[in-house]
């Protein structure tokens, strides 16, 4: 199967996925460092969200491997990935619209946690994202920003080891975003691994230790923020290329 070093939480090797004739992910490889906050960026349509979907079983890869704790998790179903300690949030939020906020929190506790512990944890996490006063509100009645916060809190219910966040900043007000980022750092201090897809460059550049850049379905660069910001290929991917001919 191929071993990954201990300091790698997730080892993505030559991942591929086509939709019809469009090769959304076209041989993408990167290694997510364990216990750190990393960012996955790229222009619109570069394949970031598809990659997230392949890592979490939401979509099936055509080829390639995703090594997590020595196991290839490519091809597993979303719940199987989840039970291995990986959770994610979605760019388009997926809260249960006809459950209350609190019920949403408890909906993911199909695990070996005593009920009172799950409730206590739900309370604590809701407090963290300032949703306590909305605990009885239906998910479908929350604003987009509030749904994102609920999804974030819900993702933490299972105490995952690896947390994938798809555009956590979009639609969330600045104060709450700061709150959320503080918590992401706390998760990292506890030894968790975080991978963020995000368009807000200030979030990425100020909070990620390592950044992977995708364009046209492949990784075109990786490194620390200061290096990425000066990388000509990255600038070109975002700013466009002048006419070649």
């Amino acid at each position, binding site marked *: 199967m191929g071993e990954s070093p201990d300091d790698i939480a997730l080892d993505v090797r030559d991942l591929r996925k086509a939709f019809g004739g469009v090769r959304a992910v076209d041989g993408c490889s990167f290694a997510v460092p364990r216990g750190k906050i990393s960012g996955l960026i790229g222009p619109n349509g570069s394949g970031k969200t598809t990659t997230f979907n392949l890592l979490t079983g939401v979509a099936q890869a055509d080829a390639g491997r995703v090594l997590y704790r020595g196991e290839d998790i490519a091809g597993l179903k979303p719940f199987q990935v989840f039970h291995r300690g990986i959770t994610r949030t979605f760019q388009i939020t997926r809260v249960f619209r006809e459950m209350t906020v609190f019920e949403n929190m408890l909906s993911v506790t199909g695990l070996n946690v005593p009920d009172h512990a799950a409730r206590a944890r739900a309370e604590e996490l809701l407090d963290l994202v300032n949703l306590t006063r909305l605990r009885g509100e239906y998910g479908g009645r929350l604003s987009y920003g509030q749904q994102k916060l609920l999804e974030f809190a819900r993702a933490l219910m299972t105490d995952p080891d690896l947390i994938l966040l798809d555009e956590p900043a979009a639609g969330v007000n600045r104060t709450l975003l700061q709150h959320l980022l503080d918590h992401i750092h706390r998760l990292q201090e506890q030894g968790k691994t975080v991978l963020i897809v995000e368009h807000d460059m200030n979030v990425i550049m100020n909070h990620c230790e390592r950044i992977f850049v995708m364009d046209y379905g492949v990784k075109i660069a990786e490194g620390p923020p200061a290096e990425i910001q000066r990388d000509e290929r990255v*600038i070109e991917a975002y*700013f*466009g290329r002048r006419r070649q001919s």
Partner: protein
Amino acid sequence: MALLELRDVSAAYGAIQILYGVSLHVDPGEVVSVIGPNGAGKSTAFKVIMGFINHLGGEIVFDGKSLVGQRPNRVLGLGLGYVPQGRVVFARMTVRENLEMGAYLERDKARIQQAMDYVFSLFPRLGERPRQLAGTMSGGEQQMLAMGRALMMRPRMMMLDEPSLGLSPRFVDEVFDKIGALAGTGLTVMLVEQNAARALEISDRAYVLELGRNRFEGTGRALLANPEVRQMYLGGQGAAAG
């Protein structure tokens, strides 16, 4: 006098404010680009001009008339054409039917036919297959069709939202060629583009937005040469540090 002018325009999607006092103008016959990183408010600026979303404040004047509070069909009727992002052709309609939809405000059959002949002369590939279903065309062809459809009302000015988005490099060249050709006929053009380099190359002037506000403006050439503009796309801090 400017053909289109925005003065201090603010706008929102529902409760989320996106534009905070944006000003810009387009003179007759100009090609003007609006660029900026994701979330800058580029497409939103187009949507508030067309009357699709909430206008919170500021003036929008086209050809001497205020567009504030006008519905999209009225804006089209005033001579402002619009090509939406993602092409949005009617997939189950033929090329000809799509073009007819573009002229839905026009009742004179002869004028519709005239406009269609004009579109076919600009886009010969559409003229070769008027009966093809739009949904079976390539992305680049659909973009041509969407542009043709916007031309059916014979607008004085055309706004294109991300014309190169999702197109293969070959079609990107072709779309920019067509935009250049349209500008050559005297049509006033304003475009929003994520491919800033290509947009600036064909633009007389451009505006750079960031987080819903004006950040830079200048000639296409000057903005292409400005490293600060390029650096903006990857966050501000690096520019200072670098």
